[in-house]
């Protein structure tokens, strides 16, 4: 039988303990990652009153006041030209707008990036929808828009009905339905992407 030096055995145990320590730490961190709320759940609480806010309207560089609950449903989208998924959302909104599906809903695209970033994204350049720049950081905090894209459906009474990410036409459909208090099982015709292009 081969005799293994005692020191070698001890050293191997120490190395094994070191590796075990690493595995435990990694496992704990994995638990934190999987146990955390996904970013798309960081929006405001559903059923709460949507706060009013000021924004800089990009088209004429004037400061406007948005007052959810003024009788018109509003669909807010926190997006940024530097965010790739936001471009998809804005394009989906544009297609829905072209199909006339947003006629009864006011859509406001809110950015926090500098205005000179807007030309970066074709979707932002080409959309006819209203784009506003958030004036105060408190607006972002009030809507808990910690990550973009974040869409927020607000009904005509100013109550938040749905929040979350949106990147496809089907997502836009769901948000519009929430604004209009249309049950999710009822169809709202929005032209698919392939037809609009």
């Amino acid at each position, binding site marked *: 039988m081969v005799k293994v030096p005692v020191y*070698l055995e*001890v050293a191997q145990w*120490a*190395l094994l*303990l070191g590796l075990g320590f690493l595995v435990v*730490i990694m496992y704990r961190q994995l638990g934190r990652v999987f146990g*955390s709320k996904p970013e798309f759940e960081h929006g405001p609480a559903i059923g709460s009153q949507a706060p009013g806010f000021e924004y800089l309207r990009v088209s004429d560089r004037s400061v406007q006041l948005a007052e959810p609950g003024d009788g018109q449903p509003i669909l807010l989208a926190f997006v940024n030209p530097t965010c790739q998924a936001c471009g998809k959302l804005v394009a989906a909104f544009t297609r829905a707008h072209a199909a006339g599906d947003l006629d009864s809903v006011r859509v406001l695209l809110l950015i926090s990036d500098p205005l000179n970033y807007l030309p970066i994204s074709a979707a932002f350049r080409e959309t006819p929808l209203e784009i506003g720049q958030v004036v105060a950081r408190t607006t972002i905090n009030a809507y808990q828009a910690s*990550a973009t894209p974040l869409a927020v459906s607000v009904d005509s009474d100013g109550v938040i009905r749905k929040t979350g990410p949106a990147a496809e036409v089907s997502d836009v459909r769901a948000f519009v339905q929430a604004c209009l208090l249309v049950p999710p099982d009822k169809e709202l015709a929005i032209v698919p992407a392939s037809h609009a292009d």
Partner: protein
Amino acid sequence: MNQTAAAAKACVAVILLVAGGAKLADLSGFSATLRLFLPRKTPHLAIRGSAVGVVAAELVLGGASLCWPGGRWLNPVILALTCAFVIVTAAGFAIFRGRSCRCFGALSSKKFDLLSIARSGVLVVAAGLATGRLGPTAALSDLDSALLAMASALLVLATFTAVRALDASATNLGRT
């Protein structure tokens, strides 16, 4: 053979390897900690150089101590290094209490506190125990040393990867 000395020597060596690998993966974080202890006008290059020096010292001493236990000259050097850790943590506790020491990169968020001094003290005790005579059974063959060297390299690599992964996931969790 003094088994306590062998165990202490191996444990201190593994801790040095893990600490070195973790600091290597978070060199900028460790440099920021080091900056606290250096004069304000110290150039960035000197700070980064010092950080690399500390990391290299930990890796080389840890690796050499683990793979070549017969080298008795290493023991006082490692003992001196662990004593330096105690001095640094005590100074950190006195001047920068509550600040993160980044001693193990993202593996640990331990701060300069009394517990950190106690931990460094335990390391000094272990390094002291490791200076004991190991006896002839500690004389490893070249193959054994090579095996331990490879395992050490793997441990450092695993630590490096773990720190980078933890750092990335922590950044993602805290993104605002």
